[in-house]
């Protein structure tokens, strides 16, 4: 299991680890000790630019650099990365197809005590509706490191979502685990129901699977780290083999992972689906764990949704 580590911390370490490539330029908006670009900044100061609290300018300066051949990475909280600079990302990054990686940290409810203004629950939806954008939501430190490597190797616009809280590493305990952009990972192999999750809800879903196991229900858990392009084959195979699907995400139930899975199922293989997420309401201040429970994202909630989906078979 090892140390608990947040995906933003793992991100920062990975960016430093893979940062030797001279094409990489990193931008932050006065948040380097939060988004954890501070490690890169320390090691490669000539390729790090602090742009101050001016996210729109940051995104487009990065786009300008990318237009010259750079791999440019911009960093701010998910709230601002997806919301405040939507137009800049859409028109100056996604539309021209530039190699800019937009990294939104502190996503979802588990920002915690800072409250609703900083709890972005819309970013997956906002970013995935943008043509040409790849959307990645790593679930733990181990996966984040591999996601950073893959995103740096991929040439084109990406949105990467990281979180504030320290989490257990769960993906490193699966022997055949392999990370590839656009390919979800089957972590457990149940036949009764499938739970498709991203971000920290992957480990909550593994806990849910244990709860279900105690009741004799064998749940398949899929780590869907890439929301776009979504892994259709894996979803359709799960639908065929288990007949009921639950999605779990730290995001609004509208437009996120649940939406992406619903789009696949409803058009290719209608299957009972339950979407676990924030029920189209704003967050609140509170302790992260308390918030997940309050907003219905606890393992018990995922397990209950699994049973509802199964009942609809």
């Amino acid at each position, binding site marked *: 299991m090892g140390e608990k580590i947040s995906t933003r911390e793992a991100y920062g370490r990975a960016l430093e680890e893979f940062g030797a490539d001279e094409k990489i330029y990193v931008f932050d908006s006065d948040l380097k000790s939060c988004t954890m670009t501070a490690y890169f900044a320390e090691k490669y100061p000539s*390729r790090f630019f602090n*742009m*101050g609290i001016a996210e*729109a*300018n940051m995104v487009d*300066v990065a*786009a*300008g*650099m990318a237009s010259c051949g750079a791999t440019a990475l911009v960093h701010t909280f998910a709230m601002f990365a997806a919301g405040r600079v939507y137009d800049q990302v859409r028109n*100056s990054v996604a539309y021209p197809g530039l190699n800019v990686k937009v990294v939104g940290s502190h996503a979802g409810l588990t920002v915690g005590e800072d409250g609703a203004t900083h709890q972005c629950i819309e970013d997956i939806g906002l970013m995935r509706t943008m043509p040409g954008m790849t959307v990645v939501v790593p679930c733990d430190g181990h996966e984040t490191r591999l996601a950073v490597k893959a995103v740096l190797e991929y040439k084109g616009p990406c949105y990467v979502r990281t979180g504030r809280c320290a989490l257990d590493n769960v993906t490193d305990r699966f022997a055949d685990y392999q990370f590839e952009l656009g390919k979800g990972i089957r972590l457990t192999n149940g036949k009764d129901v499938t739970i498709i999750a991203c971000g920290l809800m992957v480990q909550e879903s593994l806990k849910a699977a244990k709860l279900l196991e105690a009741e004799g229900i064998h749940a398949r858990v899929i780590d869907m780290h890439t929301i776009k392009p979504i892994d259709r084959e894996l979803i359709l195979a799960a639908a065929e083999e288990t007949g009921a699907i639950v999605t779990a995400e730290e995001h609004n139930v509208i437009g996120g992972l649940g939406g992406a899975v619903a789009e696949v199922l409803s058009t290719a293989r209608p299957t009972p689906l339950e979407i676990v997420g924030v029920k189209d309401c704003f967050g609140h201040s509170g302790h992260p764990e308390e918030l997940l429970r309050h907003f219905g994202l606890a393992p018990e909630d995922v397990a209950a949704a699994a049973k509802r989906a199964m009942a609809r078979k």
Partner: protein
Amino acid sequence: MEEMKKRYLERMSAQIRKTALETIQTAGSGHIGGSFSIAEILSVLYFDKMQVDPADPKRENRDRFVISKGHCSPAVYTTLALRGFFPAEHLKTFREITSDLSGHVEMHVPGVDMSTGSLGQGLSVALGMALYGKCKGYQNHVYCVLGDGEIQEGQVWEAAMAAGFYKADNLIAVVDNNKLQLDGALDEVMSPYPIGDKFKAFGWKVLEADGHDVEQLSAAFDLAKKSKGQPVMIVADTVKGKGVSVFENQVRFHGGHPTKEEFETAYRELNEQLAGLEGQR
């Protein structure tokens, strides 16, 4: 400036206007006012100052150009065609569904360095290109043309702050101060004045020029290229719709389409200008 070069740049300015108008007429729409106000600026940049090569449009250390007011595509595409980046014949496909020449400027068109259209973003992009040039040790310059109405966008001032802070002295911007925007006169809609003082406050070197005088523009660009430690803003005094009596200072021609009679007047006047400049060759 040599008389011959002056006449050449004036001729190219008139040619940009005439070809841009033909392009707009064929397409059935397009922005005349702001295209005509930047004809001399584009002429001086593309036919004198900028180190670009139509045979090698992607050369890494080339000078770069960002038209932040991306709706002035008729002038930009026309300039690129006249400069040899693609055949002028291709301009006839402007705004067609199968053409790469869209309503706003796009970077997959040969010679275009950045897609623009959403106002307020180009100066930041140009700053990114300038910083990249500095990191790489290029000796190039990055040019950016902004609309005067466009600088109402807050992002322009984020870029102004950052360019001053990072001492991007290879960044040369021009504000096309034609004094009109879509809804009317700038100082009636939302005054951005004084323009120069604001950029000065952010650490820029600020120059002024008559935006329709190729000699003044040329001198300003030459001075700008010598800047050390400061980005340069050239506030260009221009006339929206410049060069055609019925277009000049008319808000309607921000994006509006001329009547048949107005087209006739425009071609007559532009042809007269061209003939006059040819005669002095």
